[in-house]
């Protein structure tokens, strides 16, 4: 079982990450990936960029712990989590989660579990930049509610 965690300013290539998950992997029949993109949170306010801050050290530990929790619940042989920080333009890639499993259900559920926990626990903060101002994005209750299905 392997876990790869990366917090970086650079962009990532989904094809490359997918290939890494698949290469020399004869036991898994499923690869599930999720890619998050930067979008506008405030409609009609002309967002120019998104700024992402994180807590170096703690963030990586939390992502590792989330991946390990996922591996205790599902048979996920390989997990890759990449999250970008710094200034990002609308439409840019912000987060990647990829998992491999023997069968698809574990892969789908595992990837969703990782994203739901990342949203609620990983120490990142988003700020929207407009032409003349900026605004910190507020935590969404719907993200908290999404954890409910894993805590039953």
């Amino acid at each position: 079982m392997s876990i790869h965690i990366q917090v970086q300013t650079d962009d990532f290539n989904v094809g490359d990450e997918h290939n890494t998950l698949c290469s020399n992997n004869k036991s898994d029949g499923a690869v599930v990936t999720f890619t998050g993109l930067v979008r506008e949170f405030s409609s009609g306010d002309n967002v120019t960029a998104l700024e992402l801050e994180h807590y170096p050290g703690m963030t990586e530990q939390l992502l590792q712990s989330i991946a390990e929790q996922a591996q205790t619940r599902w048979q996920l042989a390989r997990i890759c989590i990449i999250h970008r920080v710094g200034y990002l333009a609308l439409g840019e890639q912000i987060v990647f989660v990829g998992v491999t499993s023997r069968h698809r259900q574990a892969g789908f559920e595992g990837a969703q579990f990782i994203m739901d926990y990342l949203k609620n626990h990983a120490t990142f903060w988003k700020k929207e930049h407009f032409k003349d101002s900026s605004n910190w994005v507020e935590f969404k209750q719907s993200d908290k509610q999404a954890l409910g299905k894993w805590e039953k």
Partner: protein
Amino acid sequence: MAVGSAINPNDVLPSAGKVELLFFGQLKERLKCSKLSLEISQPLSISELKLKLVSQYPHWQPWLEERELLAALNQTMSSSDEIVKVGDELAFFPPVTGG
């Protein structure tokens, strides 16, 4: 070898000294401060340490008393009754918004 000669970390660590404080996200911006070394004379709970901060920086009170403010002691999420000792790293921040 004399019995009881093993070094007890509690004897070695001085009770007075500095705690490294970190602030993130909107809180950092409101306080206009990202990090701070705070002198303490004895171990304090996180809530006691917050009161000490407010006594030194009264204008920080509204931000440090926000109900949703989170704390991490040595990079582990912590409740307000956990004890902070010299040499610890304590971070305060608002709810996270990654992904």
